């Protein structure tokens, strides 16, 4: 497992032609690993194209400050967003 809860990460900003489950609004954004999900999961990027989705991947629940995601966010400073990101989309954030 490459990342642990509490670790600072950044979502890769790369584009990906074809099906993938990393929402555009978190690409390139900095977050904190909230939890490393138990187990491994098939890859939707290959499964969508008649593949069995192996090798399986680690999956993380990542926490982003809303103010990091949306310039001019109107809610409270403490509000945040959580979403699941597959390991190969995450980079260490020094």
């Amino acid at each position, binding site marked *: 497992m490459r990342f642990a809860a509490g670790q600072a990460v950044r979502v890769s900003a790369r584009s990906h032609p074809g099906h993938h489950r990393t929402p555009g609004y978190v690409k390139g954004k900095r977050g904190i690993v909230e939890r490393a999900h138990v187990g491994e999961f098939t890859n939707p990027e290959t499964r969508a194209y008649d593949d069995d989705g192996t090798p399986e991947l680690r*999956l993380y629940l990542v926490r982003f400050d809303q103010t990091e995601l949306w310039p001019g966010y109107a809610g409270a400073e403490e509000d*945040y967003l959580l979403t699941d990101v597959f390991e190969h989309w995450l980079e260490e954030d020094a």
Partner: protein
Amino acid sequence: MSHGDDHDHSHEPITADAEAPVAARVQALADLLVEKGVVSREDIRRGIDWLVSRSPSDGARLVARAWVDDAFKERLLEDARSAALELDLDPGPAPVVVALENTADVHHLVVCTLCSCYPRALLGPPPDWYKSLPYRSRAVSDPRGVLREFGVELGEDTELRVVDSTADMRYLVVPRRPDGTEHLDEDGLAQLVTRDSMIGVAQPGAA
């Protein structure tokens, strides 16, 4: 009166509703999958029957038990699938269900920006608005505004956590037990737990 090809005014094709092209595409896809032997009509029927047989009352039973039994609540937050099986509820096949607890200081709101991921086994089919583009986009970018439109006014000191289901996890909100419900038993409490309160767009009903 017939309405054939020979009538003398022109207009767009008449369809039952805006979803008709989607329905036609789904039908065509189903026909192809059956024709190629990937699934049978019976498989599709069984899948639909299972989905429409699910209801938010199952999720409500989990929440009500969590309200009256702290140890159960801990198990629910740790592993919702096992907790559902404990109550003889069907948590469905994978994906994994994760329960998130609302407290006096924290409110969770669930969305699926990419499609319509939803804990269907425990809540039944998602409401149409959950699948709509306005909800899916605004729940992440203006969640307090969305909540206000649903009638939920969060204080500035309540921490709002929006959860976007993008992968193999399905999220179920455990709403706060309403005040003044000390006299209710578990079944009475379950009546207060609405579908919307388990998505996070409403508080549970008042006693």
